[in-house]
């Protein structure tokens, strides 16, 4: 990121294919003595073959708990899948053998409902599995939200053009209600940076600026009507309208901060990548936007949910179609297992890109943005088709976790639903979610949904 001055933002330029464009000079809405902690979730789909992602050193047995240092690891010690993360080895905490014990049968739906909630999936009246509680990022966002900032930012990298679909839901607001996410980079850009004031230097307001000022007043006027109506209702209806009123208030605060803003310029001005609308391009630009938003404290919690990838996008056109159709149900065919491994390498490369962006930004105290971020890469399902043991979990940055390590846990938890080879499991991933929440400052959190959960041992050293 450069530190140069303001460059006017043009939405048209953003939309134009092949054009490059800039963010305006950004505003840090608060100035903390110690940099705040941020949480970033990178949620990918399908399973990643264990033999291709696990890392081992001689003498470390598969059935015990151990760790080794990654900081001094050689490139050759990195697994095929995780090789692209080598450059960030000193900032990584790779967790081997965690399992999602809440998923039980149907891995896709149950995993979406439980992976980030750590709570038992719920069956709704139609028989669908849905989240029964807020996901951990939403719990954290609710507690650490800053006035005038977004509580959290949800993005999705979709297939099929700017407005394609990501048919997966990992982020939950509450029971049965998935958080919507933005898949269009122009919409995301507009949401984050579109309302920052122009730096005209003139004291007289234009007509547009006068209208813009009234926009916020109108929000406050309508918020009052939502509140008034809520007081005449009860139960869930009342809660819903109070919640709506409160969200209008948050938006008003953001507009107010942007309006009066400019307390401290964080000077970020990332150039958005331009070119064909590929998944990687969208990912790159989302990574830059999140980095800028974190750097300028526009939000402290963000997530990127990834959709399906075409096999041809990573050198496996011969397997046909997309990852699901071409290789996920591999039937132990070696070429397909290799394809899955390479698919996860693509995500490893994307995660590395994310870490690089965060690492490049210096905080006011000299640390890097990455140092103050828990970047969590967690996949929908585990190491084999529809199974949720051996989740490949990678944490970047750490915000207080002891990083530069590869940690392996013994599989000594009896499976609640033992089937086939699925009899003893590693620790529940819900423990990691609690550890993350505590690291983010929610030191009293000890329950996810209705389930009491204790932290995962060993993460802070």
């Amino acid at each position, binding site marked *: 990121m450069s530190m140069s001055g303001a460059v006017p933002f043009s939405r048209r330029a953003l939309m134009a294919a092949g054009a490059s464009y800039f963010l305006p000079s950004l505003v840090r809405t608060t100035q903390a003595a110690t940099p705040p902690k941020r949480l970033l979730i990178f949620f990918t789909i399908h399973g990643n073959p264990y033999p291709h992602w696990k890392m081992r050193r001689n003498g470390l047995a598969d059935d015990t708990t151990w760790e080794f240092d990654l900081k001094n690891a050689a490139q050759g010690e990195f697994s095929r899948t995780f090789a692209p993360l080598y450059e960030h080895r000193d900032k990584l905490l790779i967790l081997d053998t965690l399992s999602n014990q809440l998923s039980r049968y149907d891995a896709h739906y149950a995993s979406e409902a439980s992976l980030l909630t750590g709570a038992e999936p719920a069956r709704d009246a139609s028989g669908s599995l849905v989240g029964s509680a807020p996901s951990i990022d939403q719990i954290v966002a609710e507690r650490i939200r800053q006035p005038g900032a977004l509580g959290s930012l949800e993005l999705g990298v979709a297939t099929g053009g700017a407005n394609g679909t990501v048919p997966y839901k990992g982020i939950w607001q509450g029971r049965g209600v*998935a958080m*919507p996410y*933005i898949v269009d980079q122009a919409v995301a850009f507009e949401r984050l940076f579109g309302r920052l004031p122009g730096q005209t230097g003139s004291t007289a307001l234009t007509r547009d600026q006068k*209208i813009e*000022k009234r926009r916020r*007043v109108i929000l406050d006027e*309508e918020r009052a009507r939502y509140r008034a109506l809520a007081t005449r209702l009860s139960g869930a209806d009342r809660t819903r309208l109070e919640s*709506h009123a409160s969200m209008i208030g948050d938006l008003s605060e953001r507009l107010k901060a942007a309006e009066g803003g400019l307390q401290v310029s964080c000077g970020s001005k990332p150039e958005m990548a331009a070119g064909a609308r590929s998944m990687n391009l969208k990912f790159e630009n989302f990574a830059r936007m999140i980095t800028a938003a974190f750097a300028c404290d526009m939000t402290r919690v963000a997530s990127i949910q990834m959709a399906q990838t075409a096999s041809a996008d990573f050198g496996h056109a011969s397997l046909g179609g997309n990852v699901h159709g071409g290789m996920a149900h591999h039937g*132990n065919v070696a070429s397909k297992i290799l394809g899955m491994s390479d698919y996860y390498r693509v995500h490893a490369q994307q995660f590395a890109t994310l870490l690089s962006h965060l690492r490049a930004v210096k905080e006011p105290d000299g640390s890097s943005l990455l140092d103050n971020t828990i970047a969590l890469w967690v996949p929908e399902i585990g190491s084999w088709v529809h199974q949720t043991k051996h989740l490949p979990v990678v944490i970047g940055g750490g915000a207080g976790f002891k990083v530069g390590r590869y940690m392996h846990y013994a599989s000594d938890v009896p499976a609640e639903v033992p089937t086939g080879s699925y009899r003893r499991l590693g620790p529940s991933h819900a423990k990691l979610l609690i550890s993350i929440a505590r690291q983010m400052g929610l030191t009293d959190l000890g329950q996810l949904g209705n389930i009491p959960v204790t932290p995962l041992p060993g993460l802070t050293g």
Partner: protein
Amino acid sequence: MRAFFAVTCLLVSSSACTGAIGEDPDDPGLVDVEEGAAGSTGGTGPTGTDPVIPPPSSCSATGPSKLPAVRRLSRPEYRNVMADLFPGVVLPALDVPEDSGRGGFENVAELLAPTPLHIERYEAIAYAVSAKVSGTEAAARTLAGCAPTNAAEQQACGRKFIESFGLRAFRRPLSPVEISDYVASFEASRAAVDFGGAIQLVVSRFLQSVDFLYRIESGPRPDDWMMAGRLSFLIWQSLPDAALLEAARLGRLTSRDGIATEAQRMLRDPRGRRAVVDFHRQWLDFDKLASESDKDTTLYKAWTPTLMKAVRDESDRFVGSAIYEKNGGLAKLLTSPETLVNAELARLYGVAAPAGSAWAPTTLPARQRAGVLTRANFLASQGHSENGSPPLRGIAILNRFLCTTVPDPPDDADTSNPGEAADAKTKTNRQLFEERAASSQCAGCHALFNPLGYALENFDAIGRYRATDNGKPVNASVTLAVADLEGALTGPIELSNRLAGSAQVAGCMATKWFTFAAGRDVGPNDACAVGELTKTVSSGKGILDLVMQTVVTPQFLN
């Protein structure tokens, strides 16, 4: 795309296969406004005689069976309302997030929760739309219908506009307190900006109001205005028109007959197509195709993005013409070979192609095709890239037409594609799936739904008809063992007819319709009303009759 290869073993006994299976999730991403029949305000109304007003319901009203008192507009409703509020205006993209939904339905009141992204999009869209319709002084004057020459006239015009626009936006007259509130806001904007700016800002304010974005009912019974809203959102998925508001003002929506007469009038209006098409879209998951569009292009060279779009569009057009315009019911939905095709789709179905890019009515080959289960959208949506999936097709029929669910397969089930077995090229698709599901562990549940899928084995992964599979004759003869469908049959036509004559299917459709119409699940106190709706379906009446029967249920009237 995300659906597993549903050929997996199920860890249940063969005699007790109960439970539920996850349905396809809704995409909560932002998408552009869809073009086409579902969202269109154009088109023609029904061509037949009006549905008759049904006799009084024999069901009695009970408290817990009320309709939801607070409902946020669903995404389709929001888009329709905006379009109807500003007819003839090309609006900016109305890109609000999708809602979570349940069982395919996107208008479940309890799940229409606000999220920060919704609130921001409502605000941004309100501003963009208000700028579009009143962003200049001239446009504002046109919208407000006045040309004030001084402050007093501006003030008077503003008040008048607030009352008239507010009536439409809130679907009821504003109270004196509300008028004062909006007038004060208008005057403050006028002082801060100018008359045009004040009109623009007050429009923007209305479009974010709780009374605009939510349907709110209070009191022991719905008043005339609430009843107008119930009618318009049920029949048009949108706000009342001037005539309906006038009927409300005149107190004509208090009596059952007055309400039913308005419903008859509204069903004649082409806007009635929206709710009928959208109900079928949500019930039958027409949009699933988008996530199952990945077909093997070496096997299916014809499968192009334009064909896929035509396959998807046909569903709306079929429902719009055969069900809405002709007041068709369940039988027509399942058994009618009528449809509309464009040239590319005509080739898939093997019928004469219309010229150019036109769509034209046609009748599909009667021995090959019947209704919705034999159309390319359903067939391609329930399959994999190389072949159709009998289990997925069967489970979709169970879920959508029989309201029956099955448990999930176990973690260690073999979910690999049976089409890739070493000897796959020597067998038919059916043989491969039969072998996979043969074990005692698997056979219990698969016996319920695999045969439903085998009866559709005359169709490949993109829905083309085939008499042979891998060089062998297709075997589409099955013995069904589920619900009241039991017994032997052969092929898609007989399957469609069997379903069309099933009492359980009629009851299931009535249940799905009630869920959609009420914006909530069916509860114990709804059994009588759903029973009456079931009779309407099973007696062979059309969708418009089903709407009329809904209007006279105690749930709707009270």
